[in-house]
């Protein structure tokens, strides 16, 4: 049952990711990208990370995709830019296949054997995934959390300054 769900979702996510690169209209690419994000959220649920799945849908499929679709609509790209590829289609395809081959070799040769950490299924079920995340984030990762807030502030100010009419 789990295997069927995995292969079905993997197929959908790969096909959708492929159509992100192939669609002529950027709006269609954006819709395919949303499909990929939703499939990845399904994988996060299967990996017992439900909080990450919720964040994936809210932040990626919600906020970031709204931003992208908004810019596509604002620039009115649908009719202006038709399917234009660079002449490096062959080179890009070759490089992508090479990268796939390389990563598969790495996965085959490396061993992910270091199992048996402290976070198990029972712990996630008894505490809840969100509480575990919050406990890790506000104890071990407090400084990166604060730096991330500064990063977001800088990004907001930068976006406002860049899109002002006369800088």
């Amino acid at each position, binding site marked *: 049952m*789990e295997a069927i769900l*995995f292969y079905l979702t*993997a197929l959908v*996510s*790969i096909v959708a990711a492929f159509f*992100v*690169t192939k669609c002529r209209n*950027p709006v269609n690419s954006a819709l395919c990208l949303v499909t*990929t*994000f939703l499939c*990845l959220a399904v*994988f996060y649920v*299967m990996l*017992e*990370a439900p909080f*990450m799945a919720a964040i994936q849908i809210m*932040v*990626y499929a919600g906020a*970031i995709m709204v931003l*992208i679709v908004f*810019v*596509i609509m604002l*620039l009115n*790209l649908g009719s202006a*830019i038709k399917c234009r*590829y*660079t002449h*490096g*289609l062959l*080179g*890009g*395809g070759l*490089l*992508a*296949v090479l*990268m*796939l081959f390389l*990563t*598969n070799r790495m*996965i085959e040769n490396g061993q*992910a054997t*270091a*199992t*048996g*950490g*402290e*976070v*198990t299924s029972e712990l996630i079920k008894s505490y809840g995934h969100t509480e575990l*995340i919050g406990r*890790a*984030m506000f104890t*071990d*990762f407090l400084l990166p959390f604060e730096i991330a807030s500064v*990063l*977001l502030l800088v990004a*907001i100010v*930068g*976006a406002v300054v*860049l*899109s002002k009419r006369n800088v």
Partner: protein
Amino acid sequence: MISVYHYLILSAILFSIGTFGVLTRKNAIVVFMCIEVMLNSVNLTFIALSRHVGNMDGQIFVFFVMTVAAAEAAVGLALMIAFFRNKESIEVDDFNMLKW
């Protein structure tokens, strides 16, 4: 039974598709979306290995990757709007104002 290798190979495939899109498309917004696909495949790797190892740190990293992606989306799209206002195009071939 689905092992961690299935997830790793899936994320390798997604990363390669994202690379292909970044290298072959001319539209800057589509290139941007392909970069998002690549970031998401790395997130899948992080969460799969975090589940496999039994440690929470990988998922915190995914949280920070999402933060950086949100900041990147805001700044990148503002740059594209500013560029489109000047050049009436967002083809990556027209991004040549720093060339001399």
